[in-house]
Structures are given as structure tokens and as C-alpha cells.
């Protein structure tokens, strides 16, 4: 998929973002980064195609922009940097706008509000009523996610969980496997992918919560690309209103 070099520069230095939209239109193509390990948001099917809610959404957005969509798969924690370095025009990866991220990149309005889930092995005796009940238990998160940040700030920094009981994974499915294998007790991630992974690996969901999630999923774009942001915000708003997003969500099994 990504073997060929981009035929055209998707973007020059992020500073001159004012012309970003024009550049994309001129190139006839938007290069979008994702981390395809997060069904039902994004994953790769048996034929090697990018599938999932985010993927369908960005293609629909591309259609309304009138450009082709080129998707590049990379580790979640490289996405922001890649966007910053101008390697990508946008990132769609079930990503949430956090204060730290917003220092580096800009975000569109949310296209979907979400919750997080704590998952554990089927035979786990753990009972959770609130996120802080995870205190003291070994827990896996994906590197660079809001969930990782939440655990660090609310469990580790407060001394509730020792630092060596927190494991940052390259990919969410690896963390899920380790819960299933009994190497760690808990997994904290977005609710829907958690349920999807739980189904596949035989985990059980202990708690679904809004308090660890900090808002909704947004598309990240280079800092200062105001024209692109305006256009994407407009399209997202339009899709929220005309039911397009609802339709795509349902098609991908999302409530």
C-alpha cells in the first residue's frame, strides 16, 4: 500500500498552513495517517484493505472535498509527530483532542463522542464501580493515548498504582492478548474497540465510563491550517446533520 513514494508533496512546511486546503485540492489527494489496529474504528481486512468507521468516514469526507484519499498506517504514537513534520495532511485514528496535543496540532470539531472501557480476563474476580478501582492492579494501555495519560496522572502520579505495573503497548490488540494470557490484569481503552477485542479474545468488560475520556474523536490537522480546518469542520457538521455519520457508524456496528 505504502510502497510508492507520494507522487506529490502533500504539504510543505506546516507553518504555511493557510494554503493547505488549496495544496490538497491541487494535488487531488489527501494523505491521511492512521493506526490500523483499532477495530471497529480502523483495521486491515484479509485482503489488506483499510476498513472501519474512521476509514469509511474519511473516504466520505474525501468525496465531499473532491480529492482522493491515501491512507498510511503507522504506530499510533508516531501520528502526531508525522503530522507535525508534514508527512501527513491529516490524522484520523479515533483520536481525541487533548491540551497537550493541541499545542502541536489542530483538531476539527468532534465527529463522535466516546467512552472508555476497562476490560479484564474472563476469570477475573475484580469488580469496578469507578475508574479509580483500577488502583494497584497491573494495567495495559496503548502508547501515546489519552488513556495512557489518564493512568499516569490519576493512578501513578497519585501513588495508587506503582509505575512498574503500567505497560504501554505499541498496539491495543497486543495489550488485549496479554490480558487474555494473564500477563496483565486490566486494559483501558476506547469502549467500542475494547468491546470488539473483548469479543475476539474472550475478555469481559468491567466498566464503561466517560470520566477517563476527554471528549470526542476529532481529525487532527497541521497547526495553523485554518482553511483546511474550516472546510473539514463544515463537512463534519454537514454529515452530522444529514445523518451520514450516523449511517456510517451503524454500518460499522457502532451505536
Amino acid at each position, binding site marked *: 500500500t505504502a510502497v510508492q513514494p507520494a507522487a506529490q508533496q502533500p504539504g510543505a512546511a506546516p507553518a504555511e498552513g493557510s494554503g493547505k486546503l488549496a495544496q490538497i485540492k491541487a494535488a487531488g489527494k489527501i494523505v491521511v495517517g492512521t493506526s490500523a489496529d483499532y477495530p471497529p474504528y480502523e483495521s486491515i481486512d484479509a485482503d489488506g484493505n483499510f476498513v472501519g468507521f474512521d476509514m469509511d468516514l474519511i473516504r466520505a469526507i474525501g468525496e465531499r472535498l473532491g480529492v482522493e484519499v491515501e491512507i498510511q498506517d503507522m504506530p499510533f*504514537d*508516531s501520528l*502526531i*509527530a508525522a503530522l*507535525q513534520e508534514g508527512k501527513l495532511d491529516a490524522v484520523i485514528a479515533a483520536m481525541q483532542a487533548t491540551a*497537550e*496535543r493541541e*499545542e*502541536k496540532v489542530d483538531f476539527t470539531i468532534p465527529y463522535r463522542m466516546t467512552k472508555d472501557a476497562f476490560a479484564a480476563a474472563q476469570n477475573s474476580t475484580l469488580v469496578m464501580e469507578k475508574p479509580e478501582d483500577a488502583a494497584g492492579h497491573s494495567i*495495559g494501555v496503548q*502508547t*501515546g493515548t489519552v488513556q*495512557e*495519560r489518564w493512568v*499516569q496522572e490519576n493512578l501513578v502520579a497519585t501513588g495508587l498504582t506503582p509505575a*512498574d505495573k503500567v*505497560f*504501554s*503497548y*505499541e498496539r491495543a490488540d*497486543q*495489550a488485549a*492478548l*496479554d490480558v487474555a*494470557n*494473564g*500477563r496483565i490484569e486490566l486494559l483501558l481503552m476506547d469502549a467500542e474497540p475494547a468491546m470488539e477485542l473483548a469479543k475476539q479474545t474472550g475478555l469481559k468488560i468491567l466498566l464503561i465510563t466517560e470520566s477517563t475520556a476527554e471528549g470526542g474523536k476529532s481529525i487532527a490537522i497541521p497547526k495553523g491550517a485554518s482553511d483546511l480546518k474550516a472546510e473539514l469542520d463544515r463537512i463534519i457538521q454537514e454529515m452530522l446533520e444529514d445523518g451520514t455519520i450516523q449511517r456510517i457508524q451503524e454500518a460499522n456496528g457502532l451505536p
Partner: protein
Amino acid sequence: MEAFVQLLNNVLPSLLQGVGVTLQIAAVSLLLGMAIGLPVGVGRVYGPRWLQRALAAYITLFQGTPLLIQLFLVYYGLPDLGLTLGRMEAAFLTLGLNSGAYQAEYLRGALQSVGEGQMTAARAIGMSKWLAVRSIILPQALRLVLPAWSNEAIAMLKYTAVVFLIAVPDLMGQAKILSSRYFAPIPIYMIVAVFYIVLVGATYLLLRQLERKLHIPGLTGETH
């Protein structure tokens, strides 16, 4: 500049913890590799034919495939067969098995370069084959293998950097976490590179001291 100092302050404690983990993994794996490589190397040269073949297969398998795949197979694959190792144990085992294959080959070369005459002379004063291997051949081979072994130690130090992929918080793993926390991959990886350079340099100097110390006139080269 000030921003960099600030960043350095923020990341240093975690990176130092990572150094500890890296050194631990390198040391344990190297020793495990030695424990494997020693008998395998000897078996390759002095064992019965069937054993030589079996050991050659082990060596081909581990030298012929990437370490990273070996690591994933051990960590993520073995649970399918009912063997679930902790992340550190998986790192030790994979790196140990991998290093064992290389160390065995180095030792084989050294054993073969000791020379037929030493064995004959040992047998001639009534030593059994095993006693001769133990007290005459191996002591020489182990000294001859030292330079290659030093290289392996340094290679090992560098190869530990893949264990972050099974969520081990080694130096590289810390770098990964920190760079997504501070969104500053280039300076952080640069700092990490400097850490590795220091570790590798120190190891190199240390092992050269060891080589000097174990030097025997005429048997091992002067210095290099």
C-alpha cells in the same frame, strides 16, 4: 536551549530507569547465551554426528531469522501452545537463545583453531577425551573466542532495543513513551542515542581490559 534543558530534566529519570532495564536484559541474556552457547559449541565439534546435526539446525534457525520475529513468536505465539512467559522472561529467553546460537558458532571456530596436536598430546598423557576438552581445549578456545565474544556483548546491548515492542520499559521503551508524551521525538531519540553510545563505549573499554588481563603470550594476539 532552555527548552532542551527542561526536556532533559523531564526525561532523565525515566531514561535512567530504562538504562537499568537494558543492562539487566543484556547481562542476563548474554549469560544465558553463554550457558547455551558453550555446550552447543562443544557439541558441534566433539559431539556425535546426530547431535552435531541437531545443533546445526538450532543455529541455522536462530541465525537465519530476525530476532524480532523470534521475540514475537516467543512472547505472543507461545501462549497459543500453553506457555505464557512474563515479558522479562520472554526477553531473556529469546535474546539468550539467539545469542546462544551466535556464541556457539564463535566457540566452534575457536575450538577448531586450537589445533589437533593439543588433543593428541592430552590423550597421550592419559586424559580422557572429555577431560582433554575441559582442561586443555576449552581454556584455550575460551581465550581465543574473547574478541568475538566482546563483539557479541556489544551487539547484544544494541539488540536489546527491540524489547520495547513487548512493552518492556527498557531505554528504548522509555524513549517511546516519553516521545509521545512530550511530542519531541527527535531530541529524545538523540538523547537516547547518546546513552547507547556511552553504554557501548563503556562496555567496549571494559571488555578490552578483560582481554588484556587474560592475555597469554603467543596464544592470543597482543592488543587490537
